[in-house]
């Protein structure tokens, strides 16, 4: 890899170690993503593009295989809603949101809430609301989520965490 002008993005041929890790984190094999045809159907149906942001999910896949870096402010990494419309319309059913989640995790731009949610799932195999609430209390206070708390009490019941069978 050579370093020259700023506007020329250099790529190396082999998959970078980081990108290998991202694919591993998504829970699928490399070939499940590399089957991409490059048809850009995903971009045409992407909900992020409803906000008139020009984003192409296929570009994320190609940067994964070309060893390019993905910036923290990439619109898909920031705004992907995990709606799976891309997967549904993709001729090969490629699960792009899973890749984007892995990107969010490695780039360290997950919110505290997300981290707490994932942590709960990691420990008990399901969500335990008190844990999530306590872990991300500062974040939720800051973002103004606290005004929804009265509503939560309508369906939250306090109990000890249930465990998924076999965990």
């Amino acid at each position: 890899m050579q370093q020259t002008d700023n506007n020329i993005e250099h790529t190396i041929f082999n998959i970078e170690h980081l990108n290998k890790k991202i694919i591993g984190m998504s829970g699928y094999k490399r070939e499940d993503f590399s089957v991409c045809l490059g048809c850009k159907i995903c971009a045409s149906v992407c909900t992020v593009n409803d906000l008139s942001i020009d984003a192409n999910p296929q570009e994320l896949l190609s940067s994964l295989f070309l060893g390019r870096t993905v910036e923290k402010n990439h619109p898909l990494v920031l705004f992907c809603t995990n709606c799976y419309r891309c997967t549904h319309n993709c001729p090969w059913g490629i699960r792009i949101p899973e890749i984007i989640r892995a990107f969010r995790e490695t780039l360290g731009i997950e919110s505290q809430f997300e981290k707490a949610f994932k942590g709960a799932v990691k420990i008990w195999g399901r969500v335990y609301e008190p844990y999530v609430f306590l872990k991300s209390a500062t974040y939720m206070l800051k973002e103004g989520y606290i005004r929804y708390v009265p509503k939560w009490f309508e369906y939250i019941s306090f109990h000890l965490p249930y465990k998924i069978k076999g965990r």
Partner: protein
Amino acid sequence: MNILIIGGGISGISAAKVLLKTHHKVTIVEKSEAPGGLMEKIANCRIGFKTFYDEIRDDPNLTVIKGTCVIDAERVNGSFKIHLEGQGHIDADRIIISSGLVPYDPKHLKGKRIITSLEYDAMIDQKNVELPEINKIAFVLCVGSRGNEYPLCSSVCCSYSLREIKWTLQRIKPEITVFYNDLRFFGQEFYMEKVFRDAGVNFIRANSRYFDEDENGVTIRYYNDNRIIEDRFDYVVLSIGLHPNPELKSLSEVFGFTLNEYGFIKEVEPLKTDIEGIYVSGGALEPMNIKDAILTGFGASSKCLSDLNGGFDDTIENKISYEDTPDIDNIPVDLNSYLFYLGIDDPSFKMFYEFLSESFINIAQKLCELGKNVCIVTQNLVMPSYGELLYENARRKGVIFVHLEEGQSLKVENSTAYIHGQKDVLSFSFDKMVSFNDYIELFKNKEFLFQYRTEPQIRWNPTKWDRKHFFYGFCRYPRSERWKMREYFGAVGEVILDMEEERVYPTLSEERCSGCGSCKDACPQSAIEMIVHEKPLSVFGPNFETREPIAHIKEDVCVGCGLCASVCPSDVISYEVPFK
């Protein structure tokens, strides 16, 4: 010998032609009310089919059973006893299956203004005097093929979309946009593509599934030039793929031959199923165009004849020329990274995309298995029907594909390649680069059969060069290896059809020919050449010798169409039509 052909489409009729020529009894079982199959449904091919079928329609050895299908079959002493639905039973010694293809039905996408290409074809049919108002129209390719559910490429959708653009432009002049993944054209279609590009047809390398339809049009959203673009069209034409006929399943239960996982017949020998005495042609093999359906139709029946008679005599074999596919696998394997560039601007070499795409992918996959870093930068990958599986496998196995968009180009400097996009520049460093231009010498100064012979309307003969030369293999049209023997049997079928054919040839009186050359321009077969003759000329007394070009008709090539006689300004070329 009784031979049964299941399916009366173009391929079944082609098979029947060869068999009738060799004096066999032929029965065609057709499910619908009239023969024709898919070709009948396309307005501009209907007449072609009719003329093709009319040549054998009244043959006493031909029986066409319409509106029925095979429900049961039993084997009696090497021949078959076949039960038809509501029509009793018939006996057959050999069977040719040409059940054809079925167009995909995109139910979830269709609407009033989002129509399939077959519906659009009916719309722009010459018979319809009044057309709906079309100012802007979009063609969306690869609908119902090249996906999870159906991984094969239908191999005809690009071509027929191109024809539909042609027929549209002949009648009205709307703004046309084509959304494609790869432009899989063959032969001279690449010239057509260039003509349409110059005429303002917009080709965009992107596909879309965002269709917002209302009363007056359809909004399509697509990604191009690093941004999302919304555009409105009056009509959207979905170029649907061709799937295997579902009837093949019941046929395979009746006869016992095996199907592959995609629903097509498994070919053990060329054009033959794994059951003795059952042959296969046309769309039952794989998705193919009309010309290939004719080729395999001829081929299946000549393969059947070859098994009956134990080969062919030398008079047939001598007419058929073959050229072996050149070996291009001479790339060193001891390097680290490889870059393949599959792109060329000259349309006369684009017909070799099909051959080189497959060769490049094969080599790239081999290198990838050795642990090398391989990248293929493509303008266009032509991998029709089963070729798509190879392409899919290469993608899965780690070959990296970079598709160049419209207007992007690849530049190479000091073992680094740069792709200039709209936003940024991508660069690759590599140890070895293999490009299309390296192999251009293979194709230069050579004439291939397909070079000017793709349109079936002009020539029905898939392998014929002239009456003494029939080509198969590399010199016909460079393509996948599985076609080699199919083309051979197809050529045999064509030689059989061509033998003893009654033809009236034009006669040319050389003394009166002025050498204007209009017949040479008119001849579709290039059968007329201008040769320079020494001609006595008397002007006021003494005789001079002058050298003048005069026309000469090559009898091998001439098909007796009569165009030359009709254009000759001084009636030098004439036909002696015998009185009946």
